[in-house]
């Protein structure tokens, strides 16, 4: 087991998700499968390999200049929002 039900419940809580018992079982088992599969990577000796994010040193400092370009309109920006009023995305209240 790479991950237990308690940790799945903790991550669900952080993610503001609620699951029933059956779902907890299912997701714990699926997450275990995924993590065990990814663990195959540990078999490779990477001692001499740079981390993926740093690559070879030639690849660094990919910058853009500080120039403004047009943004989306607020209508376009809100198009994917499940709920919106006026110019804002509307969500369940997050503080009491």
């Amino acid at each position, binding site marked *: 087991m790479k991950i237990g039900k308690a940790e799945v419940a903790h991550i669900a809580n*952080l993610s503001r998700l609620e699951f029933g018992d059956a779902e907890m079982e299912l997701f714990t088992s699926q997450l275990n499968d995924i993590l065990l599969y990814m663990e195959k990577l540990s078999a490779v000796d990477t001692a001499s390999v740079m981390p993926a994010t740093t690559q070879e040193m030639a690849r*660094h400092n990919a910058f853009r200049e500080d120039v403004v370009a047009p943004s989306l309109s607020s209508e376009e920006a809100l198009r994917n929002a499940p709920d919106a009023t006026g110019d804002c995305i509307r969500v369940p*209240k997050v503080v009491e």
Partner: protein
Amino acid sequence: MDFTTVIGLEVHAQLLTKSKIFCSCSTTFGASPNSHTCPVCLGMPGVLPVLNKTVVEFAMKMALATNCNINKFSSFARKNYFYPDLPKAYQISQYSEPLAEHGYMDIELDGKMKRIGITRIHIEEDAGKLLHDDHNPFSYVDLNRTGVPLIEIVSEPDMHSAEEAAAYLRALHEILVYLEICDGTMEEGSFRCDANVSIMPVGSQEFGTRAELKNMNSFRNVQRAIEYEVKRQSYLIENGGRVIQETRLWDANAGVSNSMRGKEEAHDYRYFPDPDLLPVIVNDDWIARMRESLPELPAAKRARFIADYEIPAYDAGVLTADKRLSFYYEEVVRLSGKPKQASNWVMGEVLRLLNEDKKDISACAVSPAGLAMLLELIEKGTISGKMAKDVIVEMYVAGAMPDEIIATKGLSQISDESAIIATITDIIAKNPEQLEQFRAGKDKLFGFFVGQAMKATGGKANPALLNDLLKKMLAAN
């Protein structure tokens, strides 16, 4: 029991770039909600962030101004948390490899210098803004601020009182504004501060449990919130309780802080390297260029004003608190060659007029050339210091030069000896009784004669000359 207070501050400063940190949306404050967004800052699938070079340069400037080491290699990480103001569900920040570390700031408090360590300065993106509905169970999300560049400046726990924390904060703020990399407006959230506060028995080596204070939107509130927290923790410990590690929100209206319990606190950020962004590599040449671009910083400028212009430390502090004010003052000095008088007039009349209008020096209609000319006219005796105070008000209102105002208002001072003698002769003739009493020893009647002479000349008699002549003439007859 006596306690030692231990304070560390985390400051978030919004950088004054034109565009956001990882996309080309505008950073302008106050636009209509969700009008400065794009697929990158909305966190749409498949987009890639590209770092704004100016963000790195601004952060480097602050790092150099606070004596930090700039790391030749730094990288970005994802800080994961779920909150509606964060569309990607992670904030791009720097974690194990920040841009700069190991700096310090020297602050002055009650005439004593103290060094506050700076742990690190890193680059990150701001989150969006939530507006809460007081009457309905909703919050509204505006993502214009999402992706606005920030630097976070983390101090060592080197401060031991609310006053020290406030002094450190003001010093940081002053530098950010001098560097022109942050507008420093606390009310609009472009300069934000969180405080970690704990107490421990005097002499103890081990820090107490700390509370993190948030939501303090002015220097005064930072100081009040820390003072309240120190009292709260002392009371708890003295009454057999213990401090728990928690985040507390300052309520400025009630003057208390409240615990932010529950889910908001269940942080588990699971930082990991951001595979979308390449590392930043900074070479010596780039650092040298940034160092050369630094303006004279407030502390150095203060020291120079005290040494070169021979003005008191307090005056130098006022004149350098705002960079534009310091430029204004130096321009008056350059044009007039009178550093002390310039300091008195800028700190006195100019700032008084501006404060009454709640304006800053950039909106001042009295030009440095105008003030320099005014100082010259006082020295030459064309007008008295008292008259000059009226003239500067006219200059401030009309934006005119002092010579124009003096000409149109007929204000110029009477320094012609014969004219003043004629006036005094006339007054003496009209007031024989007072003259007799004065000569009999009633000295305070001198003021009466001064008053009569000023009245007769419409306040234009050169005061020094009038005094001299009156003394002679009252005694001589």
